[in-house]
């Protein structure tokens, strides 16, 4: 059954059409990556799913009912920045949703109830590899660790849909590869439906089961705002199936603090290596090997 149904969806700001005639259905457990030029309405679309932007025309349905018009616990979100609370430790950040649920008045738990919540939160923190940083504050964490924390914080609430707005855009390539493994394993484990905006097309192909490309099909140079973007491609990419994931299990926690030279070497390696076409890589490796001998 379709989890999310998008029926003839439009988004307009006055005269300006941002999105037009979107028609899609998304099933449970799909991983949708969204790419497109800047300003083509990707983020607006995500905000509509999140509930912070309203729908101008058409319908956006969750389980056949219109999505609530404000953010709620069934949809988790990780932004590029500012996703974690600076005044709470890692443990406090992850525990927050449990505390909010059990204690409506104070939003805090004490005694036995707190112990139980702490235990649950610690499991989640270990799962994202932040076990070493349990009592640190966000400002003491690196960008990658902060995003791990944001994921843990969202997922402990068991959302059905996870929205990711360029979550790895600000991270180093090496750290990004680690995060990809983490997201894939969490996606499988929690049976999530994921919508992820990215600027990195390679990332979009690698992570998603479906890749959506947002673009303007029609353009009127006299009235550049008259037409909005549509989903011009809906590619069943699905590179990342089960066996690929098993082949490369999620790496262990990012080291605390990450050793600098090592990290740099890995980044450089990733950048150079993945950008060279395959035969050239083999030849290059051979030449290096011969040279070394």
């Amino acid at each position: 059954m379709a989890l999310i149904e998008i029926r003839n969806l439009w988004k307009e700001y006055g005269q300006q059409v941002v999105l037009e005639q979107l028609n899609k259905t998304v099933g449970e457990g799909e991983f949708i990556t969204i790419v497109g030029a800047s300003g083509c309405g990707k983020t607006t679309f995500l905000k509509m799913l999140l509930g912070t932007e309203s729908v101008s025309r058409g319908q956006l349905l969750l389980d056949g009912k219109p999505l609530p018009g404000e953010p709620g616990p069934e949809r988790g979100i990780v932004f590029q920045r500012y996703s974690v609370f600076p005044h709470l430790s890692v443990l406090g950040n992850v525990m927050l949703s449990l505390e909010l649920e059990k204690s409506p008045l104070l939003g805090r738990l004490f005694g036995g109830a707190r112990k139980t919540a702490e235990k649950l939160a610690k499991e989640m923190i270990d799962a994202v590899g932040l076990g070493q940083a349990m009592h640190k504050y966000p400002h003491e964490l690196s960008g990658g660790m902060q995003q791990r924390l944001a994921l843990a914080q969202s997922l402990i609430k068991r959302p059905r849909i996870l929205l990711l707005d360029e979550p790895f855009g600000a991270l180093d390539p090496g750290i990004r590869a680690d995060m990809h493994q983490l997201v894939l394993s969490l996606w499988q484990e929690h049976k999530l439906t994921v919508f992820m905006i990215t600027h990195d097309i390679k990332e979009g192909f690698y992570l998603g089961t479906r890749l959506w490309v947002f673009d303007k099909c029609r353009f009127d140079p006299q009235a550049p705002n008259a037409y909005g973007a549509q989903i011009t491609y809906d590619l069943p990419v699905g590179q990342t199936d089960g066996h690929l994931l098993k082949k490369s299990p999620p790496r262990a926690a990012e080291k605390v603090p990450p050793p600098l030279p090592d990290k740099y070497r890995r980044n450089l390696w990733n950048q150079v290596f993945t950008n060279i076409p395959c035969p050239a890589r083999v030849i290059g490796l051979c030449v290096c090997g011969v040279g070394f001998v």
Partner: protein
Amino acid sequence: MKKLINRVPGRTARWILGVLPFVLCLVLYLAASNARLAENENDKLLPSFSSFAGAIERMAFTPDKRSGNYLLWQDTASSLWRLSLGLGLSALLALVIGILNGAIPYMRAPLSPFITAISLIPPMAILPILFIVFGLGELAKVMLIVIGIAPFLIRDVQQRALEIPAEQLIKAQTLGANTWQIIVRVLFPQIMPRLLASVRLSLGAAWLFLIAAEAIAATEGLGYRIFLVRRYLAMDVILPYVVWITLLAFLLDYVLRKISRMCYPWFHAQIQTAEN
């Protein structure tokens, strides 16, 4: 030779340079006082340090002939009581109204313009009204402080609450928080250190309003005493009182800073990271 902007004094040098202006002032005062006293030993304008000592002895360590009280301590206690009451009330008002204004658009719409208007009223201009309405007792003096600094604090807290990234409020909602929970778990703890910082900034204004109110209608208090002895040109009392008030203000500021650092280490670490 490095450029001037790149030359930084060391630890000892910084200390010496910091003390230097104080020492200079002291030396200047001593020289001027000596010169005047040499001409006329009954001069009251720039008294010698021995007459300061005498005045302090009289005010702080000898019971007053008429009332039997130690005047300096009595003045200090009542002034500090009024000041802390005024500051505390203002901070409380700022916390409640400021956070509500910052968090809830339907509170902000009617209250924000109103408070902006209130904050533009010069508090000293309505001091007579306060004396008429609240009488000449403690209440009027405390109210002057509150009216003087609460609107500033409220506006500041509201601004700080609005500056908290929208992402955090959205995130909290996706974690299941309702409006009240967002206020107590997200806004309140992040506002507190910022409120303490603005209370520290408003200390100067609070002292100003306190002393003004005491000068006009009071029977004890640091400001009252200064204005009382002015009639006898008693500089030997006024100057130690001014130094004492300055010291108290410094200590208050210091204590607030320490409290903030102790209770909200993440806030100060964050500021440092931003500055680096």
